[in-house]
């Protein structure tokens, strides 16, 4: 496998409603920034990979068809990737594989969601035949599993609020973030409305319009590069008897493969920053365990000790994460791009000092799709 690197990143100003742009315009806002960042033009791009979450979200079947012009894909290979909420991460990994394999020299990865054109809560609660219609969106799906985590780990109730307050404060440092709440506190989070008990309003991701793009190349184009040291993806069924919904096997397996490929034996010591897909606050400690940063049942202790803040032992979501911006299809690629920005030193106000190795992570469906990468400042 030949080396590949992220050489440019771009994202939109995420907002609840980007009524000023079409889907194509939204994608191009991110793409144009990524290409400018990479210092490349359309003839330099060999292929385009598009990621977007379920078509029901915008009610457009196969949007890659009508977006081909806007994505600059005419006369080039265009691939659509779809793995529910993890799709942005999967998009990055697929684009990376096209360069690592030697098939292409430069690939543009782009992912988007325009949540304002629909209603994700509705789209995720469509009754299926013969079942009791108790489904209540992603929050309703994940809340019972969060409760199970809290019980299993014996985690104190304020840890979820700590994550939310930290990510929203970090989001205030990110010029592209949807939510900027520099004055949020653990107390104010705990005082917010309980939506899907045990998940509160302030512990829930927003609904955003946004896009993200990265240029992946076999050689630097602009001087800076985030070298892709490892990629991993794993999948499991939504349900089966004995399935561990708190600490899914697919996530554990993907993480093990990722660290092995990256040559990392002690992730907590060797990773300088992590962008982890945390749409509901409690998923920070859950994924810290699933990813192997801590033993099972111990993740919340890292959060509670403040070690996941910028300046801590493992800054998690210095960008503000999914809790600050959630254009669903793009959210995974945002995690991957933000990890790359950390090791390229282009993260601005939310830069982690001296970050040389960073994790980008995404999960999707009923915690059944996992995609992750490790990027580093050193060429492997």
């Amino acid at each position, binding site marked *: 496998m030949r080396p590949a690197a992220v050489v440019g990143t771009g994202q939109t100003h995420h907002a609840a*409603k980007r*009524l*000023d*742009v*079409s889907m*194509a*315009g939204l994608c*191009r806002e991110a793409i144009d920034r990524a290409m400018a960042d990479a210092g490349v033009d*359309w003839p330099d791009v060999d292929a385009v990979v598009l990621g977007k979450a379920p078509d029901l979200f*915008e*009610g*457009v079947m196969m949007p890659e068809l009508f977006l081909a*012009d*806007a*994505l*600059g894909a*005419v006369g080039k290979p265009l691939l659509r990737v779809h793995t529910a909420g993890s799709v942005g991460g999967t998009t990055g990994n697929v684009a990376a594989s096209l360069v690592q394999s030697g098939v292409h020299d430069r690939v543009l990865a782009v992912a988007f969601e*325009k949540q*304002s*054109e*629909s*209603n994700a*809560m*509705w*789209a995720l*609660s*469509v*009754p299926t*035949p*013969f*079942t*009791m*219609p*108790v*489904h*209540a*969106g992603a*929050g*309703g799906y994940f*809340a*019972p*599993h969060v*409760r*199970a985590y809290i*019980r*299993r780990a014996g985690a104190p109730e304020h840890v979820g609020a700590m994550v939310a307050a930290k990510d929203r404060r970090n989001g205030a440092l990110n010029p592209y973030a949807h939510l900027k709440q520099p004055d949020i506190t653990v107390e104010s989070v705990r005082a917010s*409305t*309980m*939506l*899907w*008990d045990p*998940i509160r309003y302030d512990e829930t991701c927003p609904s955003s319009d946004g896009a993200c793009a990265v240029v992946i190349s076999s050689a630097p184009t602009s001087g800076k590069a985030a070298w892709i040291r490892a990629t991993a993806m794993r999948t499991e*069924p939504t*349900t*089966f*008897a*004995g*399935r561990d*919904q*708190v600490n899914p096997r697919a996530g554990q397996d993907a993480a093990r493969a990722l660290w092995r490929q990256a040559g990392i034996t002690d992730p907590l010591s060797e990773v300088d920053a992590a962008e982890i897909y945390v749409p509901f606050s409690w998923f920070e400690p859950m994924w810290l365990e699933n990813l192997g940063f801590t033993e099972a049942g111990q993740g919340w202790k890292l959060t509670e000790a403040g070690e996941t803040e910028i300046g801590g032992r493992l800054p998690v979501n210095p960008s503000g994460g999914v809790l600050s911006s959630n254009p669903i299809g793009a959210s995974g690629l945002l995690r991957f791009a933000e990890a790359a920005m950390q090791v390229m030193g282009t993260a601005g106000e939310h830069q982690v000092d001296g970050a040389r190795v960073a994790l980008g992570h995404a999960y999707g469906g009923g915690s059944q799709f996992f995609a992750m990468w490790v990027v580093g400042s050193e060429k492997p």
Partner: protein
Amino acid sequence: MGFDYTRSTGPTLGRFLSDLRRRRVTGIRGSDGRVHVPPLEYDPVTAQRLSEFVDVAATGAVRGWSWIPEPLEGQPLARPFAWALIQLDGADTSLLHAVDAGSPDRMATGTRVRARWRGERVGAITDIECFEISDEPADPPAEADDVTMVTTPVHLRYTHSASPTEDPFLRGLMEGRLIAQRCPVCEKVYFPPRPACPTDGVPTTDRVELGDRGTVTTFCVVNVPFLGQRIPPPYVSAYVLLDGADIPFLHLLLGVAPADVRMGMRVEAVWKPREEWGPSMQNIDHFRPSGEPDAPFDSYSRHL
């Protein structure tokens, strides 16, 4: 199911749709000089953003067509018509629209047509009701406000064919019985039944009937109202592990204050009146506490 999707038009499509409302057709000039109608946001050759709008006529010539003898619901015309690729005067590309020709005998490549504008226009391609065969100019432009958003209702109707595994399950529900399937390899009992074991990949050959008592493994209290919601909040959405089953399912828990619901709580089904039963899990109106002592954590911890 259905939803009224909205579309932010952006500046290019917004201009096209606003102009349709004004009985004008607008194209855009590409990098190679061609005028695209409808306008493209980005150039198909260079991928650059396009911005040179060009007024074209609402008259043109048929470049290709297909006769529709039996129109379907939702098509532009209820009587037989032609779908046609129409190159408007001043455009270099063809627009797909309907031609109210009356008979296929009147359609030919090169046939001159003009737009028949709808009386009440909203900023949509259907503001052109259809095209009609004519050498005359179309109606003159009119004033109208800009369009920045369009609404696109989408409706889907499903017909479900019950599988051989679902059939006894659904028939069982209609008799107030809960029919599960057991995997012959791992012996896990699935309710609702699965045709194949997700772990072993073999058909679940053994039918098992379960009682209607179980244990709440975990749950959430839904306090949030949302579009399309079937049960008014707040309500408790609980994973119920029926006695003898190896996988919990979501159902409604009533008869207890949400604050008093616990993981491990023992529950029993409350069925709807028999005359309301159908092939549905909704025959069980809800679960309620059975009054038995809570199940120990270890008895359901593998099902979280």
